Structures are given as C-alpha cells and as structure tokens.
C-alpha cells in the first residue's frame, strides 16, 4: 500500500475511533485515493464474511453452560448486600470502618503505654518504699537476731547445766520435766 501512513488510519476509521475532523479528512482522501478506498472496502467485506461471530466464535457444550450458570448463580447469592451498593457508598463504608478500627487500635496502644508508664512509676515508688521499710526491718531483725541468740544461749546454758553439753554430744534435748 503506497499510503503506508494511512493503513492504520483505515483501521481507526473502521473502528470509529477517529475524531470528526480526522474522519472528514480521511473520507476526502479516500475519494481521491483508490488504494485506500479498496483497502477499506476489502477489510469491511472481510469483516462481514470472514470475521464474524459465527466464523470465529465457538459454542461451549450444554453441560458447560449449565455448570457456569449454576456456579455463577451460587456466587451471586454469596455476594452480600454490599455487592449492590453504589461504589461511592462502599468506599465511604470501607474508609469509615478503616478509620474506626485504626482509631481503636491506636487508642488501645496509647492507653497501654500510659498505663505501663504509670505502673513503672508505681513500681519505682514501691521499690523506694520497700527499700526504706526494708532498712528499718533489717535494723529490727538484727535486734531480734541478737535477742534470739541470747535466748538460745540461755536455753543451751540451761540444758548444758542439767544434761551435759549438747554441742559435743549431738543429742537432741528433750525436756522430760514438763512431760
């Protein structure tokens, strides 16, 4: 084809994709160019005779038809109410849901952080309080230990006087007097 640039224009003209201006320009060209007109006519005849649905299409089997209609009918039932909503409404619902879920998640973590900060502070305070209590307790304990050891010494002294030295004999003293 001599009008090589116009080969594709023939296709666009046939598919109705030229603008009004381009269309008129091409039509006036075809009126003087036999080659382009023949190409267009030939393609149009081919479309009518060869490139039809009857020639290029295929018929699926009846079983396939039934199966597809059944499967698609089931799938249609599974589509929930959202399936019928307009797109903008769906988008609004999705974005609202996303916002609410995001808000809850962020809020939950923020609260947790605050609580953990508070509990850390409490632990520090408790530790400080515990330390100070512990110190005073230790002092008391020391006194008690001293007292206990005094009382043990007294007991030992009592039993050693009466039944011999317990440390040397390893005998568990039994106070038979009170039995």
């Amino acid at each position, binding site marked *: 084809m001599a009008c090589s640039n116009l*080969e*594709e224009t023939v*296709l*666009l003209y046939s*598919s*109705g*994709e030229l603008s009004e201006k381009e269309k008129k320009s091409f039509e006036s060209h075809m009126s003087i160019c036999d080659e382009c007109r023949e190409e267009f006519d*030939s*393609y149009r*005849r*081919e*479309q*009518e*005779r*060869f*490139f039809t*649905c*009857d*020639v*290029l*299409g*295929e*018929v*699926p*089997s009846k079983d*396939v*038809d039934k*199966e*597809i*209609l059944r*499967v*698609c*009918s089931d*799938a*249609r*039932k599974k*589509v929930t109410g959202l*399936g*019928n*909503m307009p*797109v903008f409404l*769906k988008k609004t619902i999705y974005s609202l849901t996303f916002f609410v879920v995001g808000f809850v998640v962020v809020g939950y973590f923020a609260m947790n952080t605050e609580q953990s900060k508070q509990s850390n502070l409490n632990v520090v305070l408790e530790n400080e309080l515990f330390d100070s209590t512990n110190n005073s307790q230790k002092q008391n304990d020391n006194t008690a230990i001293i007292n206990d050891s005094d009382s043990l010494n007294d007991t030992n002294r009592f039993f050693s006087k009466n039944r011999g030295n317990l440390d040397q004999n390893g005998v568990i003293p039994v106070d038979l007097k009170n039995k």
Partner: protein
Amino acid sequence: MQQNQTSDDQHLFDLWLKGDPQGFSGLYDKYKNRVFGFLVRMTGDREIAEDLLQETFLAALRNADQFDRSRSFLSWLFGIAHKRTIDFFRHAKVETEHKSDAETAVGSKIDAPDQQLSDQNLRALINEAVETLDPLQREVFLLRELGGVPFKEIAKIMDCPINTALGRMRLALKNIRKELKKRGIDGVQ
C-alpha cells in the same frame, strides 16, 4: 445500532446486579460464543477454554461494581478474559506454539480455488489462518474482531502504545490474507 446494543447490555447488567438470574443468563447467552471463541483460539484447548470461560464470568460477577458504564460491556468482558488467559499461561507455563501442521491439513480441503466453500469449510480455513498468527497479533485481531474492542482499549488491555496495537492488527490482517491465499481464497468479492 451500537447504542441499542449498549443500552440492552446496561439493562441486563442492572438486572444482573439486582440478582435477577435473567440478567446474567441474558448476557451469558449473548456473549459466551465470542468469549469462548477468543479463549479457544488463545489457548488452543477447548477444556482449558471452558475452565477459563467459567473463571471469566465468575470474575465479572465478583467485580461487577468495577464496571465502568461508559465502556462497552463486551470490551470489559474481553479485558477480563485476556487477564484470565495471561494468568493461565503464567501459572501453567504453557508455551503457545503454532501448529505447524495447519497448512498441510487444510490444503486438501479445497479442490479448486473457485469452489463454492461451505460455511463449515470456510470456518475451518479462517480459524486455521488465525491460528498461524503470532500470539500477540492473534490476540489483537480477536479482541478487535470478536470482542469489538476499540484499539485504544486494546492498547490499555495489552499494556502497549496504540500504534503497536494498530501495527499488530495490520500484520495480522496481512498474514491472514496470505494464509487464505495459500488455501485458495484470494480476497472477498
């Protein structure tokens, strides 16, 4: 005519969205042969094409809310069928190979070039010529001729510039004519 077609489709599509089974079956009956023809020619296997046909309509059903009403329903459906085909080849890693025996099988079917061709023979000849095309040329050709998809949309579907789509179509037509000539059909009078 095209306008009526589009409004009919829109009406059936609305019925479909409302859950009326007539909407789906109406559109299915109207376009199944075209879509199935496309899938058979692209995969070269009827069974695979049947599975893909089901997947195509199911995908259309699930994504019905994404359908842009300014487009034709058939173009949209062919866009989905194209994606299903691509997915199939990607997953199955099946290589599309041209059937080398296409030419030899057809030659004997016509006794003389001027013989009146039966519809069945003509169908076989055209489809064999289509099968000899390069897969990309074949796809553009089928999208345009079976799906009536405009070249601008074909370019989008196939993710290529419009000039590439037009170039592939031009080559497809050239090669089909050459193949038909070999088989004794020299143009349509």
